[in-house]
């Protein structure tokens, strides 16, 4: 292995699957995932590849410990796509359930709306990590 190549043999523990849909809520889901990715809280993953049944992506997703589906609206396409590939998410968030109204065809959103979604996701992830630590403590 050359020095310039980065080894990818440490799978990310948290994979983020936003629906990235065509509404303000879909875009909030997407941008919240991007911010968490950039903050090192998880890895933004390819939901389209899962939907396309790209075997390498599905097998890669199986290596993660926590799958997070972030849906914009009650259609819950991200969650359904993961489940269709037998990858049920451990964390599922729906943006409209955070008090944000869906506006189909409108992609704009406020910083405040994005913060609501991003912060809620961060809380869910934190709780999940804390729960995992508690579980491992109980087992041992």
């Amino acid at each position, binding site marked *: 292995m050359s020095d310039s*190549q980065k*080894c*990818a*043999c440490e799978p*990310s523990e948290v994979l983020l699957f936003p629906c990235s849909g065509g509404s303000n809520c879909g875009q909030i889901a997407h941008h919240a995932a991007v911010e968490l990715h950039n903050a090192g809280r998880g890895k933004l993953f*390819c939901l389209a590849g899962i939907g396309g049944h790209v*075997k390498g992506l599905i*097998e*890669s997703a199986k290596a*993660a410990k926590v799958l997070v589906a972030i849906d914009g609206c009650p259609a819950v396409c991200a969650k359904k796509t993961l489940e269709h590939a037998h990858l049920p998410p451990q964390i599922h968030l729906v943006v409209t359930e955070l008090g944000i109204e869906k506006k189909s065809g409108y992609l704009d959103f406020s910083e405040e709306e994005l913060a609501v979604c991003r912060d809620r996701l961060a809380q869910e992830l934190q709780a999940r990590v804390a729960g995992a630590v508690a579980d491992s403590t109980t087992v041992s």
Partner: protein
Amino acid sequence: MKKVQVLGPGCPKCQQVAAHVAEAAKAVGVQIEVEKVSKPMDIAKYGVMFTPGLAVEGEVVCAGRIPSVEEIKGWLEAEPAKEQK
């Protein structure tokens, strides 16, 4: 003759996968041709995001972990999948 692709940059985990593949092929009596796919763009063509990965006849069978010899035996003995990768 089955073509097997070991996907990864060549770190010890990739080498362990290759060793398991050789052991499994010998155990089940299947002749194999091993291709080591190490360039990131070539690995990406398989959709593998976490290495090591393993493909049999171009079909990815696992990624992000080292499969056991027993698992690989099953993949080597299985009929090729009909669907495209």
